[in-house]
């Protein structure tokens, strides 16, 4: 709204300038055109179509007959502008009346844009794929219809242009060339910019609408002339068709939209229901609680005394149902990873052009499902890794030819279930990791002394060290100081692990091992004194009872344990948490060897109590600063157990040692 007022202000200013300048205005016609052009852009942003049209008309008149009486023309034009702005309700105001409709529109249009992006890539590989073409056409058609309904003129206009061009292609008037796909992708990006803008407006955050690209519409309209090999005979007819169709008018297409659009929306709605994620999380939470409550009841000693087969049967039934309920609730949070892969496909396409490295991308396991949060959080690290592969992994075509490899590189993104985890594999057939270079770099950066005898794997692992970045030169794609260590931190935040395998000259494979869900983890319940804590199982390497010669002290302060020939720092949990242990003698306790961010350390606890699936709960802001505690969980007996944050526990300890 304020910008609409600002627009009005600017027109008023213009009118004032006209009065002040008088007839001298002839000399700076260009200035006038520029100022009116700015108002035009502003008007487009605000959805004030009439004002925009008035501005366009005014510019045209000035350019045509500027010599005769510019002051007069300007006066007329500006008063028309004032009128237009005065009567027209800004788009935002009318939208604000129904934010729900708008947010539905944003959601739906995003889905359409995502799906048409992947379809475009299909089309690029196989221009004769009529189905993909139809799908893209339908997406634009639907977006146009929805935008028209909400009076989002700019979106409607762009979608309409693309749609009419695609219609030509659909009627086999021309073949869609990669250049054409570029332009269509660009329009998609432009629409995405608009969606972002609308979203911020909806959330009442300041945002500028995307700058209207004056050339975009022209470029879209010019697509048919970009066509690749069409039979020479048809060229004439094509040109005629384009001419005839020309720049199609918005109005003529509008009446045709309701039936088909509405039908599509209804069909999509029949298959899916949109639910607030907070409600979903609550359901998952409650289902988890129900499982625990059920366990409490079933193991109640009072109940165990009752020897009734009927009770046992009914309890068994209850167990089955609660288990099923929990699984279903969990499954509701899962989404397929396919859309994320398709986003990467777009990235690969753009980068492969930018670097001049032809790369084909393949995906497998698009249907594998993961927790929504994980898929969302995975986008950034995955994008970074794809960039790395494109930038450093693949050789240039001539180098590939010299190495006897196919010219086009091959990038594989694959998801699969493996031992209760989801493993995402990103492999390229590029040059592989250069171990000598990595070693040299690590020594240079002071990460290692250079005297260690490192295995090939250990050398590869060095790329995950903070402060390591192999890029010899900084490009705008990778090597911006954000290295693989950030990627790893991201993955570990999702309770996953990252591994790298590489064969020199044959390529590199990154493996991301991720949990299916974030809501439930496997925890090891350990006891220290009267307290019980939960250690996340995924970061535990091994558990053992130390012997007298396992533990060594360093200067009577720090302690180390000798585990399989290497020394690992020991952290006594009771000391850290100020709990009275059952015994201070380590040989009567248990050492838990954990690994966080490739840092290994041992945790000394009194005893192991058992393994349990736990639902993680936040302790809330009261304990936001509690060091070493990641959250709480309800244990089998109904008490709250605290989940240890190993990373912070360990780092905090190193901080103590420095004091």
């Amino acid at each position, binding site marked *: 709204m304020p910008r609409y007022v600002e627009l009005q202000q600017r027109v008023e200013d213009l009118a004032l300038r006209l009065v002040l300048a008088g007839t001298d205005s002839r000399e700076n016609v260009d200035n006038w055109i520029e100022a009116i052009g700015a108002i035009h852009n502003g008007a487009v942003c605000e959805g004030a179509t009439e004002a925009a049209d008035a501005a366009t008309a005014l510019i045209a008149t000035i350019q045509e007959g500027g010599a005769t009486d510019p002051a007069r023309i300007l006066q007329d034009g500006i008063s028309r502008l004032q009128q237009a702005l005065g009567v027209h309700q800004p788009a935002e105001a009318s939208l604000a009346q129904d934010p729900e409709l708008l947010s539905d529109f944003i959601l739906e249009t995003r889905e359409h844009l995502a799906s048409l992006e992947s379809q475009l890539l299909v089309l690029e590989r196989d221009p004769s794929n009529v189905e993909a073409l139809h799908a893209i056409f339908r997406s634009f058609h639907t977006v146009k219809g929805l935008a028209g309904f909400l009076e989002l003129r700019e979106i409607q206009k762009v979608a309409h242009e693309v749609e009419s061009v695609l219609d030509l292609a659909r009627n086999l008037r021309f073949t869609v060339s990669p250049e054409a796909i570029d332009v269509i992708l660009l329009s998609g990006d432009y629409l995405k910019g608009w969606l972002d803008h609308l979203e911020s407006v909806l959330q009442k955050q300041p945002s500028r609408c995307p700058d209207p690209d004056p050339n975009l519409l022209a470029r879209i309209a010019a697509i048919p002339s970009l066509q690749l090999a069409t039979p020479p005979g048809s060229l004439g007819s094509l040109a005629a068709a384009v001419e005839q169709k020309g720049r199609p008018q918005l109005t003529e297409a509008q009446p045709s939209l309701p039936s088909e659009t509405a039908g599509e929306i209804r069909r999509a709605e029949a298959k899916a229901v949109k639910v607030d994620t907070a409600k979903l999380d609550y359901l998952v939470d*409650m289902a988890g609680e129900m499982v*625990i409550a059920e366990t409490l009841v079933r193991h109640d000693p009072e109940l165990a005394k009752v020897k009734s087969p009927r009770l046992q049967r009914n309890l068994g039934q209850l167990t089955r149902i609660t288990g099923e309920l929990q699984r279903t609730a969990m499954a509701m949070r899962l989404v397929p990873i396919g859309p994320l892969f398709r986003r990467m496909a777009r990235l690969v396409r753009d980068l492969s052009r930018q670097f001049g490295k032809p790369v084909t991308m393949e995906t497998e396991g698009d249907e594998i499902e993961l927790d929504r949060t994980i898929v969302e959080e995975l986008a950034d690290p995955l994008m970074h890794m794809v960039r790395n592969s494109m930038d450093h992994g693949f050789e240039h075509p001539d180098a590939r030819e010299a190495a006897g490899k196919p010219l086009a590189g091959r990038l594989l993104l694959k998801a699969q279930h493996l031992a209760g985890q989801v493993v995402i594999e990103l492999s390229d057939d590029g040059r592989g990791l250069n171990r000598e270079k990595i070693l040299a770099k690590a020594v240079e950066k002071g990460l290692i002394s250079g005297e260690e005898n490192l295995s090939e794997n250990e050398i590869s692992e060095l790329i995950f060290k903070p402060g390591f970045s192999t890029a010899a030169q900084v490009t705008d794609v990778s090597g911006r100081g954000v290295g693989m260590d950030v990627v790893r931190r991201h993955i570990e935040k999702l309770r996953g692990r990252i591994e790298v395998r590489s064969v020199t000259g044959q390529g590199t494979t990154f493996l991301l091992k991720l949990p299916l869900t974030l809501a439930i983890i496997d925890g090891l319940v350990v006891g220290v004194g009267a307290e019980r804590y939960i250690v996340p199982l995924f970061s535990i390497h091994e558990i053992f009872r130390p012997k007298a010669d396992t533990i060594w002290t360093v200067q009577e302060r720090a302690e180390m344990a000798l585990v399989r020939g290497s020394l690992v720092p020991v952290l006594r949990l009771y000391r850290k948490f100020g*709990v009275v242990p059952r015994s201070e003698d380590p040989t009567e306790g248990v050492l838990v060897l954990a690994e966080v961010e490739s840092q290994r350390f041992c945790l000394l606890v009194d005893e192991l109590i058992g393994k349990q699936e736990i639902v993680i709960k936040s302790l809330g802001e009261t*304990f936001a*600063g*509690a060091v070493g505690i990641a959250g*709480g969980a*309800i244990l089998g007996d109904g*008490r709250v157990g605290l989940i240890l944050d190993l990373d912070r526990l360990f780092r905090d300890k190193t901080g103590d040692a420095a004091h």
Partner: protein
Amino acid sequence: MPSIVAESQPAPVTLGDARSGKYLTFQLGREEFGIRVLKVREIMGILEITAVPQTPSHVKGVVNLRGKVVPVIDLRLKFGLPAAEYTQRTCIIVTQINGESGNILMGVIVDGVSEVLSLTPSDIEDTPDFGEEITGNYLLGLAKVKGKVKILLDIDRVLSAQDLHHLKSMLQ
């Protein structure tokens, strides 16, 4: 002039009517306190509390309230009274307070719950000026009922601001 004085003493002076309403009263040592009934979610007997390490002594830990993890503080320790054994009468009053990110539940341990009182503006008196250290800013006022004085607490201020501040300063 009087208006300026009123402004410079922000909270209690002009609240007269806003402070009337129903209060849950409870004992702490030899004193009686009251908090707004609207702030109370439920009252339960003492149950097993899981201690959270490295927190101030009045933060007793967390309890399981039907699947929710709720922090519990001991109001005696919070107010600097000597610690007492928990008895049959000891209660946890679960209150809903305004946290930094919306409403949160928090339990307070008190010696025992007394009754619910309806207080009219005439029952309530402003807190006398004891000086900053004693009153803090979490006293709503004092109520005189049947010859006894009840101390009315602004539980939001007692719990959120102070505790959070305390925790944060401890960590720095």
